[in-house]
């Protein structure tokens, strides 16, 4: 069962999952050792060539990882970044062998992983990520690159592992960077391009790594990971503020009913970025349709559509919500509609109407009564609101 964190819920402290891939000998493992207090889990014996080697744990069976997690032996080691070298060997060889040995249904007749086997690898990897997350340890996965066919005859390089493992790993990745030698310099590019895959949550520009003898190289990955985490945390805060603003605008547009309300609202949202303007504009159009209000592009004017003679003025102003329409096709009889009429008569409109309706819903639920009866007990406003005065 996947745990879904709602946009309104605070995200847990952000840990980064970095993936680096590229051709052999480009310096991936060496670069991994520039992370903060790294421990490299060696799954394919390629670490011997690395420069600036630090702590390494040679893994022979995946059971060793499970055992260390179960006994919490990682906790006694003072490291802040775990490096999985390589991701392909880890998932396709060690984890695959482990899940096939543990459960027969994870293995196909030809000895390869079954669909449920990939599911089991996903669970295994999730457990590993969760474990290190709880310890506030960042994860770096080093992979070889492999060419895959892209559009037409073009080739696109991506981390080397089987499709199922690739799906599992990419689902967790915060950043995916391709390392290659360009003009004798090792470069790192997180941007996706035609020739290689990438993921760039921190929006880093492509750059050349300094030579390993340069002092700036010694903690380069530690700095990149920290900058990424700072960026993700900032994004989380920005996202929460954006959602709050959208909630506010949603409430405001729900309270619009007259052409003047929509004109005023449109002028408010026009300066917002597209990711706010487009969805809120959609809600506004929906609300205009409910209220029989139209917009003339030529004149730039909002006006009320002609309504059937049997419709009362108050009904023109207070259209029921789409929910209440769906529940009861006879709009004039819904408790919400009656409540809106009562509140309008008492002088509420705009944001106050939205607030009062919510209070009425709470009251109706508490007292096991209908919304209109709850509205009847609301106080009368002394002066009509602006929107009411305009109407």
């Amino acid at each position: 069962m996947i745990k879904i964190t709602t946009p309104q819920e605070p995200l847990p402290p952000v840990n980064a999952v970095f993936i680096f891939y590229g051709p052999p000998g480009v310096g991936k493992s060496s670069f991994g050792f520039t992370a903060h207090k790294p421990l490299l889990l060696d799954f394919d014996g390629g670490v011997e060539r690395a420069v600036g080697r630090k702590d390494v744990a040679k893994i022979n069976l995946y059971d060793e990882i499970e055992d260390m997690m179960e006994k919490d032996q990682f906790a006694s080691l003072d490291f802040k970044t775990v490096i999985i070298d390589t991701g392909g060997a880890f998932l396709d060889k060690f984890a695959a062998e482990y899940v096939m040995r543990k459960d027969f249904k994870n293995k196909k007749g030809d000895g390869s992983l079954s669909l449920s086997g990939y599911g089991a690898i996903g669970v295994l990897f999730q457990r590993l990520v969760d474990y290190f997350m709880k310890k506030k340890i960042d994860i770096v996965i080093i992979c070889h690159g492999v060419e895959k066919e892209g559009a037409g005859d073009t080739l696109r390089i991506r981390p080397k592992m089987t499709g199922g493992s690739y799906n599992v790993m990419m689902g967790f990745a915060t950043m995916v960077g391709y390392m290659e030698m360009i003009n004798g310099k090792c470069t790192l590019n997180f941007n996706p391009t035609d020739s290689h895959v990438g993921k760039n949550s921190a929006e880093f520009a492509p750059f050349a790594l300094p030579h390993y003898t340069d002092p700036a190289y010694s903690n380069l990955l530690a700095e990149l990971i920290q900058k990424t985490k700072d960026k993700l945390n900032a994004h989380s805060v920005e996202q929460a503020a954006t959602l709050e603003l959208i909630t506010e605008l949603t409430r405001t547009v729900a309270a619009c009913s007259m052409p003047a309300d929509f004109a005023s609202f449109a002028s408010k949202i026009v300066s917002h970025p597209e990711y706010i303007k487009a969805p809120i504009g959609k809600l506004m159009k929906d609300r205009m349709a409910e209220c029989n209000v139209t917009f003339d592009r030529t004149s730039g004017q909002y006006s009320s559509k002609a309504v059937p003679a049997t419709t009362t003025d108050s009904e023109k102003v207070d259209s029921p919500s789409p929910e209440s329409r769906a529940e009861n096709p006879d709009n004039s009889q819904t408790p919400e509609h009656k409540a809106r009429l009562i509140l309008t008569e008492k002088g509420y409109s705009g944001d106050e109407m939205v607030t009062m309706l919510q209070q009425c819903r709470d009251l109706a639920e508490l007292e096991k009564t209908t919304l209109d009866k709850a509205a009847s007990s609301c106080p009368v406003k002394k002066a009509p609101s602006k929107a009411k005065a305009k109407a």
Partner: protein
Amino acid sequence: MRYRISVSKIDQLRSYMDEEYNTTQQDVIDYLKGTKAFTPAMTLGTAFHSLVEMNHRDVEICEDPKHGTIFKVKVPELQYPMTFTAGQAKPAVEFAAAHRGAIYETPVEKEVHISGVDVLITGRVDMIEGRSGRDIKTGKYNLDVDQRYRSSQWRFYTWILGLKDFHYDNFRLLLADSNAGPIMIGSEYESVSFDTYDGIEADCLRYLASLIDFARMHDLMSYLEEKKK
């Protein structure tokens, strides 16, 4: 004269170029002409999609003496609503509850001048949630990250709306055959997200230019002309 080209049409050509789903050149031509047939499995997917969105106009929640709470979903292609039990609907209901603040089915438009013509790029985003976009996929298959990554769809929506990232929420429907068509016996949920990047606009315009080349080569530009309202 302005041309109106949807993001899904652009991605259909991209899908053919990437040799996905055995898409043929004729499939792309048919798609640009606007002819597409629905299969029962696709109809089930459409209904489950509505369930995820919890659109009150299409989804009716009822009590059934035999099955308890059931969800009746209106599907445009069918005369009668499709029915889901609470168990079948659970993943969709949980997902909808976790994304209460999202705004569904937002139309997206962007006007550009490219390859000597004016084009209005159009599309519809399943969900917008702050600076994140989401697309809900329903079908028989597991999430294919590589395939979703290659898609031009997330790039267009991310670029046009200025999103930070775009998520694919994949509900794999586990189906069994019956005389009345496929029956849903369960579902699995997976998700992946992709971030915006430098050069996303250039990539999108390249995909668009490619579609215009294709349409000109096959004399299909008239099908893309914007209709006068």
